[in-house]
Structures are given as structure tokens and as C-alpha cells.
């Protein structure tokens, strides 16, 4: 058991604003809740195995607003999601057209905090077409957008995504650009976007590098996530980085911005995620979304039971 490293009496509150819980176990939920995660956002993405029918896509989106939300509630975590057609599956034109038809059914559901994650993967023509169509859809419904930046050709792909957003007249303050690194952060911040960083072992950011980024760029428009999914990933990445930043002398205020307040401010623009949701929930949400045996009710001390805080 570990105490809050800041030695304050407030319990740690963390948000993981990008994590694919459908791929994770109840152990993960339990450990996330115990480490202080009060809310998380599950972006619609692909499942490793491509879907071939729109029905499969609908069932997935339904599970994000349905069963997964309930599953999280059993551990005292509020579950939010984003809805969108991801860049990989945008390359299946027939599927993509059908998904575009049904997306409006889901965009306005409760707890849908953004349209996303959308963007480029291989930067193909079809990816570009459905990125643009979805940007227009987000404008129609006045939604925040969550951008997935490509793993390959990242710097160019990230600039290009922002060019497209601006071409469509999107307000950068309503967009989170995710999966940033040292190469992209400056431009993303300069252009007025929220810059999200994914602490994902081996392929994306390590958290020692993250500490240095916060030191260099401050905490004003930066936040972090785990993007944990069905790959080798770490659902405790936010809490480990929270503690690592403390150990390495980042101020408490900066840490809280990066691990909690900024994600809330960014996605809170949707009106669909509010601090009261977990601090002071409505009676109907108490009945429906705090069911079963929450593991973290009654002020237990948050803990992390991992040996090392470092994610490489």
C-alpha cells in the first residue's frame, strides 16, 4: 500500500482519457480504481481483427455505451467513450459507408464525449475521405474530436491532420491530438490544440521522457493516457507517471493538470463529463451506474502494487 506521494489528505484523483477497456480484465479495473482512477474514456477503435459487417460495428458501439459502462461502474469508475470510424477500417469502403450511416445514432448518447479516435494510419485516400466526412459530422453535432496520429510518418501525418482540421474550420480548442512525442508536441501546442501523450511500452512514449516533456512544455494543454488495449500495454500508466512526476520534482499543480484537470477541461466541452458525475452523482446515476460492489468506496487509500514505476 502506498500513500498519496503528495502527502495531502485529498485522495488521488486520476482520469485515463484513452483506454480500451473492452480488451482488459476485471483485475485491471480493480487495480485502476485502487490507484485512483475515477473516470476513463474508451475511444472506439479497431479490435485487432477487422470487422467485416456494419452489424459487428454497431454491436461494438453498443457495448461501449452499454455493457462496458456497467462493468466499469462495478469498480466505482465512471466510463465514458468516443464514437467514430477508425482509420484502419476506413480502408474498407463498403464497411466505412455503412458505418457513416449509423454513427449519428451513437454520437449523442449519454457519456459520448467526443467523435474519435479518427485520423490517419497509412494516410491513404480513403482514410482522408472518412477523416474529412467525420470532421463535418463532428461540426454538425458540435462535438469535441479525438485525433489518432499515425505511428508511421508521424510528424508529417500529424501536421497534415491539423491542416485538414483547419481547412474544415474546426476550432483547435475542441480537438485533442493524441499519441504525441517530442517531435510533434511543439507544433501541436503552437497551433492551439490539446496535446495528449500515450504512455505505451515500446511503441509510443515512455514515462521518463514524459516527465521531461512536462518540464519543458509545462502543463497548460498537455494530458496523458495509457491507451491500454489488447496489446502489451499498461492500464496503470497514468498512475505510474503521476508518481514518477512527483518523484522527479514536477509540482503538484502541474501533475494534477496533466493527470486529471486537462482531460476534464478538454472533453468537458462536450457537456458529457463533469466532476460531479463521480463526486456527487445524480440519484438516477447512483441507481444505475454505481451498482454492485465498488472496491473503492469509503475512502480506502489508493495504492499501486507494481514494483517499478518506469514505462520504457
Amino acid at each position, binding site marked *: 500500500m502506498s500513500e498519496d506521494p503528495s502527502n495531502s489528505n485529498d485522495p488521488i484523483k486520476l482520469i485515463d482519457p484513452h483506454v480500451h477497456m473492452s480488451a482488459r480484465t476485471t483485475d485491471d479495473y480493480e487495480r485502476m480504481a485502487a490507484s485512483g482512477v475515477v473516470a476513463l474514456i474508451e475511444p472506439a477503435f479497431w479490435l485487432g481483427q477487422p470487422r467485416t459487417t456494419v452489424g459487428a460495428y*454497431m454491436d461494438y*458501439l*453498443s457495448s461501449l*455505451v*452499454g*455493457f462496458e*459502462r*456497467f462493468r466499469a461502474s462495478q469498480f466505482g469508475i465512471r466510463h465514458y467513450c468516443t464514437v467514430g470510424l477508425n482509420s484502419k477500417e476506413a480502408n474498407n469502403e463498403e464497411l466505412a459507408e455503412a458505418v457513416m450511416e*449509423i454513427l*449519428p*445514432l*451513437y*454520437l*449523442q*448518447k*449519454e*457519456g459520448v464525449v467526443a467523435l474519435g479516435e479518427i485520423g490517419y494510419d497509412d494516410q491513404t485516400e480513403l482514410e482522408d475521405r472518412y477523416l474529412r466526412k467525420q470532421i463535418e459530422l463532428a461540426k454538425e453535432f458540435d462535438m469535441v474530436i479525438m485525433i489518432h496520429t499515425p505511428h508511421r510518418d508521424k510528424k508529417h501525418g500529424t501536421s497534415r491532420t491539423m491542416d485538414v482540421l483547419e481547412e474544415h474550420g474546426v476550432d483547435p480548442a475542441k480537438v485533442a491530438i493524441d499519441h504525441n512525442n517530442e517531435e510533434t508536441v511543439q507544433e501541436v501546442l503552437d497551433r492551439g490544440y490539446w496535446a495528449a501523450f500515450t504512455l505505451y511500452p515500446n511503441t509510443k512514449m515512455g514515462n521518463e521522457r514524459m516527465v521531461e516533456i512536462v518540464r519543458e512544455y509545462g502543463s497548460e494543454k498537455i494530458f496523458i493516457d495509457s491507451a491500454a488495449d489488447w496489446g502489451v500495454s499498461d492500464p496503470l500508466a497514468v498512475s505510474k507517471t503521476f508518481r514518477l512526476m512527483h518523484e522527479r520534482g514536477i509540482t503538484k499543480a502541474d501533475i494534477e493538470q496533466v493527470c486529471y484537470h486537462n482531460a476534464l477541461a478538454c472533453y468537458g466541452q462536450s*457537456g*458529457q463529463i463533469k466532476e460531479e458525475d463521480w463526486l456527487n452523482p*445524480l*440519484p*438516477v*446515476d447512483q*441507481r*444505475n*451506474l454505481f*451498482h*454492485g460492489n465498488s472496491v473503492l468506496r469509503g475512502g480506502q487509500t489508493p495504492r499501486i502494487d507494481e514494483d517499478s514505476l518506469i514505462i520504457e
Partner: protein
Amino acid sequence: MATESASALSLLESWLTSRLSTEAQAWYDEKRASLSCDRDFYIAFALVPRKLGKADLIPTEDEGAACTGWDPSNWTVDQAARIALLLAGPEASFIGRLEKLCATGDVGELVTLYQALPLYPNPASLAKRAAEGLRSNVVPVFEAVAHRNPFPKRYFDQAAWNQMVLKALFIGSSLHPIQGLDARANEALAATLIDYAHERWAAGREVNPELWRCMGPFLNEARLEDVNRALASENRLSKAAARLALGAAKFPEPEEGEALSWEEIHQSLAPC
């Protein structure tokens, strides 16, 4: 539209009128006027909580009394508005809309849709839809069908009814809010529940005392041993439940021990 659905619709709309702000009412009226377009309907249905809020309805005594055969005590403003919009649309396409809403529903929508089952046109045809709600692993969705809802007692056959009661026990839900629990006691359910109790005991687990209520008149000599086991348990609620079960089946009740009603037992079991 069937008269029951029509009167439910006018009730719901009168409740909304007395609770909504002018702005919220105007939004509702606008959406109510454009129900013929499917896309608009589904988007409006999704938008209701953000436009009208999710406050509890808290029906007055008069309002509650006006509901013949359904129980709005746990309903909220957004739930009332969503069901009103659903009922106000063209009846010919009602089933199509209901099925699509169920297929795409979030937790709050599914709870809303299932708790309103008795208000829909031709409810007898919806038993399969209701059973689908009971198959959900989302406990509030299961309870939207099972609790404070006259639909199961009216339209479920015995097999569906029995599955519902057994699943309620199995998932740790309570039985007291199930309507018609006493009237629909049956031999097959009593036998199933005795087996279930044996399974629990064999695993060293407790049995929900509410189980004994479902024995009703089907508590026979062969099952006495099991009820006596509950009577002899350390748990005061199990003891009280066993007493009630014995009394209900016209067996002599033990002279000593605490007498509680099913209501009191339920209240003592409630988690918070």
C-alpha cells in the same frame, strides 16, 4: 393507438408540463412535432437527458394513483420524455423503433425502454423482448424488467417467470420489488429454488432469505427439512423468512423468534 398507451402518453406529457422549464418544454414540443423523420427521432431520443435533465420525477400521490398497473416511483424526467416521444410516434412503425432503440441503447436508455414495457401497444407480443432484457448482464437493465414492473406477472409464461426469479437470486438482486411474487408461486419454481439452496449450502454460501417467500403453498413435508435449516441458521433474516414461509404454507410457526414482514426483511437486506 391502444387506449392504455394513449392514456400513458397523456399522463407522461402532463407530468412533463408541470416540471419542465419553458425552454425545455419548447424543445420537447418541437421534437414531438417532427416524429415522422426517423433520423430526427433517434437523435432527439438520445438528446433528451442533456436537454431536459435527469431529475427524479417524484410523482405526487395523485399522479401515482393515476397509473393503473404500472409504477412510476423510480422514474426520472428524461425517462418520461423518452417514453412519451416513443409512444407519440406512428404506431405502425412502433416495433421497428423499439427494436432499433434496444439494439443501440446505452445503459440509461435500456433501463428506460424496459421499465416502460407495460405501456407499449400490444404488450403481450413483447414477452421475447422482455426476456432479452432479463438476459442482460447489466444489473440495472435486468431490474428494469424485473422490479416494480407488472409486465412479467402479466405476460410471462411459467418458464420465463421462473428463470427471472432464479436469475434475480443468482445475480444478488432482490425479490421483494418483483410484482406478483406470491400469486405466481409454482411447484416448478419451488423445486428449482430448493436445488439452488442446496447448491449454495454445499458451497458454504448463504441463501438469500427472500427465496423462502417463493415456496408459497408449495412448501410441503419433503421441503420442511430445508426450511428448518434456515430457521436454525445464525442469520436473523433467514430465521424470520423461514417463519413466514411456514406460516404461508399453513405449517405451525415456531413460538419463539423474531417476526418480520417480507418488506422488513427486504429493507434489512438492502445494501445501503
